[in-house]
């Protein structure tokens, strides 16, 4: 009796699948709802509010009165942030910092991955140690660099002293005249260059891991074919390895570009934005905390987002191919 009942309900279910699909759907939504709510309230809503804030007069001191929609919208904040004397130089610094940091970290990651891909004694340990710069809290990393580069007692200047080079204040020198073998002098933006080296140092492990994974998933037979054909190591790299790495490198560049462009901590902790190293994120926090102008901070945030969207859009238009990713 019960048996027939069961088969009956089963056939019923099989005939009209909707209730089951509906319960499946409900189950899925229930599982994801908490996550969506959290992100909606704490990320999506603030993003929208930022748009509205950027068109309002909003000061830190009367923050309790700042409304969600805003009474009278104005473009004043945009005028203010674009009108300041250093707006364009901040923008240029941001681009130099972002592109320099991304390229350097990917290049270092590539060299590291190529060197560490083969087998050697202690490889596992070295592969772990090499990830340190990326794992250490940014605040500790930035402060060690500060101390190492300190002109009075930093170890780097001590080493430079061995070669008779006078102490250099790496993080506070806007531009430095570097004499190349006495032939000509190069003027380099020293503090900015130092910050870019910090980025390269800190994020090369990230590129290293991705490129290493790509190297290891490469088919061995292509390698062997190149060997049989008598390709030298440099030829093999140029014609076999590098082309195969192009997809992972272009994805890495996109990711690193976006994240470096949005990065605040590194520059803030290293230089505080001094000596021509002020990037747009540091400027945003300065507008907000330093000058107490929340509206202007929001407006500059919109500028940041707009640039990012344009750059990423261009990337997808010109560099991205479906089969690459």
């Amino acid at each position, binding site marked *: 009796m019960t048996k027939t009942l069961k088969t009956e309900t089963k056939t019923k279910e099989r005939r009209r699948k909707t209730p089951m699909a509906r319960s499946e759907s409900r189950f899925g939504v229930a599982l994801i709802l908490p996550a969506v709510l959290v992100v909606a309230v704490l990320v999506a809503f603030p993003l929208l509010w930022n748009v509205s804030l950027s068109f309002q007069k909003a000061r830190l001191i009367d923050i309790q009165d700042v409304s969600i929609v805003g009474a009278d919208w104005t473009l004043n904040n945009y005028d203010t942030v674009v009108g300041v004397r250093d707006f364009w130089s901040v923008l240029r610094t941001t681009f130099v910092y972002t592109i320099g940091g991304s390229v350097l970290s990917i290049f270092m990651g590539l060299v590291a991955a190529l060197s560490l891909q083969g087998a050697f004694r202690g490889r596992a340990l070295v592969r772990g140690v090499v990830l340190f710069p990326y794992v250490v809290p940014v605040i500790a990393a930035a402060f060690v660099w500060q101390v190492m580069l300190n002109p009075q007692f930093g170890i780097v200047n001590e080493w430079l002293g061995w070669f008779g080079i006078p102490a250099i204040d790496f993080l506070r020198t806007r531009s430095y005249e570097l004499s190349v073998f006495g032939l000509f002098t190069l003027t380099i933006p020293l503090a900015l260059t130092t910050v870019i080296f910090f980025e390269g140092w800190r994020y090369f492990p990230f590129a290293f891991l991705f490129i290493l994974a790509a190297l290891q998933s490469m088919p061995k037979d292509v390698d062997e074919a190149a060997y049989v054909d008598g390709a*030298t190591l440099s030829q093999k790299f140029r014609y076999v390895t590098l082309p195969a790495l192009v997809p992972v490198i272009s994805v890495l560049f996109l990711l690193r570009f976006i994240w470096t462009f949005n990065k605040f901590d590194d520059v803030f902790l290293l230089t505080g934005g001094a000596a021509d190293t002020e990037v747009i994120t540091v400027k945003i926090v300065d507008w907000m905390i330093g000058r107490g102008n929340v509206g202007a901070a929001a407006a500059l945030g919109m500028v940041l987002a707009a640039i990012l969207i344009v750059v990423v859009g261009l990337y997808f238009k010109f560099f991205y191919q479906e089969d690459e990713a």
Partner: protein
Amino acid sequence: MTRAQFEERFFGTLKWISIVFFTVIALFPLLYMLALSFKPIQDLLLDPGRWWPTLDQISGFETYRAVIRPVSEGGFGFLTFIRNSSIVAISTVVLTLSVGILAAYSVARVNFFGRQAVSIGMILVYLFPVVIVAIPLFVMFSRMGLRDSLYGLIIVYLASTLPVTLFMLRGYFQSIPVELEEAARVDGLSRLGVIRKITIPLAAPAIAAVALYVFMIAWNEFLYALLFILEKRELWTLSLGVNQLNSQEVPKTMLMAGSVIISLPIIVLFFAAERFLTEGLTAGGVKG
């Protein structure tokens, strides 16, 4: 010598130089930090080249004591910061995992309307500038009275770690054979039962990796802490505590001691779980 032989030898040597180079640049700053954290500042100023400490200095723990001592006794009160950082980081891990595991399972396995949209939305969130979210959150929390509280910080960390969690776990959940889950269903487990008894145990390595990441993100975070809790010293996390040591009045050796204190748990955790982490990193593309 043919060109091939030359290159073989040349790159063979270069490889070793490069291995040494990368090991040194990764390791030296940390060793320097550790060494300096034990030295009295006068010693360092006298001879910056002798950066390694003596045994007496190491066993003395002078700088560490000064940093850890409560403010009332003339120290910097790092014990409070360690406690706050632990509370924040552990709560974030627990919350993110409980919300994230369910969400990731849903996106990986369950058919529902809007599944694609949720995935794309999370990617966008993941790529969006933190600073832009921080400004309105600052206003919002000020008005809700959530600023100057660890709860505020924890829920912000929850929101900012959820997307990573979702990605890393979704990929792993999808790699678990569906047949296993179906078999368990046939044997009478409910859908939630499947998650609890099949998915979670099988995904344990991935979950451990995610837990470590989330812990690291919350432990290392600086911007939100700076914006939200700067005014209440007793709520400071370690990053704010270390930041405070970066001033003209405080000897740099103490700054290094503070830096060691914030780094040590992370490095220990990292070594304990390195294998999971490196695999997880490339799987999820963890932000940094």
